[in-house]
């Protein structure tokens, strides 16, 4: 055998033995048998805890559906809003099912699926503040959860009004409601579903919804690491299947209900 042929044969043999394995995140999840979802649990009805301290909500059920589709068990990793990305990057969770607004700013860092839910925002205030509409918020003490979609929009308007009052941000939705209840703030803007669930819970007396906030519809997506195309493709198909099989409507009915229509996830006249 000539030397070049020998080398060639050896190289071929080696390539058969040490075929590089590019197992991606999707493979890892299926191989490990567990899907770990980052879910925010102080954000009813999307995520909260029941009387036995077990995670429940729209997002928890969505995670369970995703795990069932993948044929694995699921594990809920409780994650406050600001910690969703660190949880994914550090590998504590595989997927974020956490009402994450799909801003372009964030898409530089994290990968978004197509929207799996959409929120309209409303003004939440107390009976005694005299606030009747979004316009009445000028000059009042306002607050929201740090960095969320509605907080960014509200802060921009607050700065534009320039009518005094203050704008404060908190680390959790629970703290915002506490501050509203005690009077540190007079009003907040929250998603309509959360406002309705909070008033219904009866934990805070005197809360009321004072009209809609004139913001764009807040589309929220499932999130995964930006470079995990295999997983992101799977998430897109999963969201689509949830919608087309009627599971989306079923979960909406279960967690939001009240005769409301599930928000449309499609826009007319444009591809996603």
């Amino acid at each position, binding site marked *: 055998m000539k030397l070049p042929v020998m080398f060639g044969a050896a190289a071929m043999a080696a390539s058969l033995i040490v075929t590089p394995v590019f197992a991606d995140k999707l493979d890892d999840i299926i191989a490990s048998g567990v899907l770990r979802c980052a879910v925010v649990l102080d954000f009813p009805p999307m995520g909260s805890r029941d009387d036995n301290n077990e995670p429940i909500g729209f997002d928890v059920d969505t995670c369970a559906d995703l795990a069932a589709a993948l044929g694995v068990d699921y594990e809920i990793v409780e994650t406050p809003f600001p910690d969703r990305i660190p949880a994914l990057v550090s590998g504590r969770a595989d997927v974020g099912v956490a009402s994450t607004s799909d801003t372009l700013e964030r898409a530089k860092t994290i990968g978004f699926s197509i929207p799996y839910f959409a929120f309209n925002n409303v003004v939440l205030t107390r009976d005694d503040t005299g606030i009747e509409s979004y316009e009445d918020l000028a000059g009042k003490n306002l607050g929201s959860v740090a960095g969320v979609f509605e907080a960014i929009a509200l802060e921009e308007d607050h700065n534009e009004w320039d009518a005094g009052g203050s704008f404060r941000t908190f680390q959790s939705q629970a703290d915002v409601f506490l501050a509203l209840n005690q*009077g540190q703030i007079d009003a907040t803007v929250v998603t309509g579903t959360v406002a309705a669930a909070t008033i219904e819970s009866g934990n805070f007396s005197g809360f009321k919804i004072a009209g809609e906030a004139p913001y764009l519809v807040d589309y929220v997506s499932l999130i995964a690491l930006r470079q995990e195309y295999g997983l992101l493709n799977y998430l897109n198909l999963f969201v689509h299947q949830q919608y087309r099989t009627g599971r989306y409507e079923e979960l909406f009915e279960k967690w939001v209900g009240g005769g409301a229509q599930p928000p449309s996830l499609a826009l007319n006249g444009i591809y996603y």
Partner: protein
Amino acid sequence: MFNINYTFHWNQAFRALPQMLEGALVTLQIAVLSMVIGIVIGVLLALAKDSRVAALRWFANIWIEVARNTPALFQVYMIYFGIPAVLQLVAGVFGVNFRALGINIFYLDSYWAVLVGIAFNNAGYLAETFRGGLRAVPPTQTRAARSLGFNAVDSFRLIVLPQMFRAVFHPMTNQMVWAILMTSVGIFVGLNIDLTGVTQELNARTFRTFEFFALAAAIYYVIAKIVTGGARLIAWRLFRY
């Protein structure tokens, strides 16, 4: 296997530097004000703890014990959320509803809650530091001052206090650095204009967690170094023999 799936975008963090430096100014402002208030109250607490009046001793003891033995986060949280809740409850027992009268006596802005909370903490720690410092000034100093015609207040103010401050200057510097770092708990009571608050908002907005927090840590470090360096200069000017 350690595998971090992240590419750093330092450019984005550096663009936000002016905003973060503005936040750092607020941090420094709260720390300085809380130190000034803490020093004044700390001296009074140190005297009260060694006072012959039992009520004063008790008051100082409770303050110092709570300030030194509970987390700073708890103290700030109580001032922002706890005290208003208690006041509201007490007012409710007496059938008073301030809200209905349009008066909101319970409202305490985040900035002030953090300032008061850290001043409370500083005063507690400094009181014990000052008590130690007062012990380091020989009692003969007071006697000598009195025999030279100083009255009780002046002999304390002009003779004992300056010597005490010389003895406790370095522990005071430590407390100042501690105060700067403590302002970061403001994030839990809605403070969004200090260094940590600004950083967390940038983080939530862009999700560039690691860049922003690394930069914030570097800024805290630099501020702390400047403060200790500045204190050394002041000490050299004021306290050289």
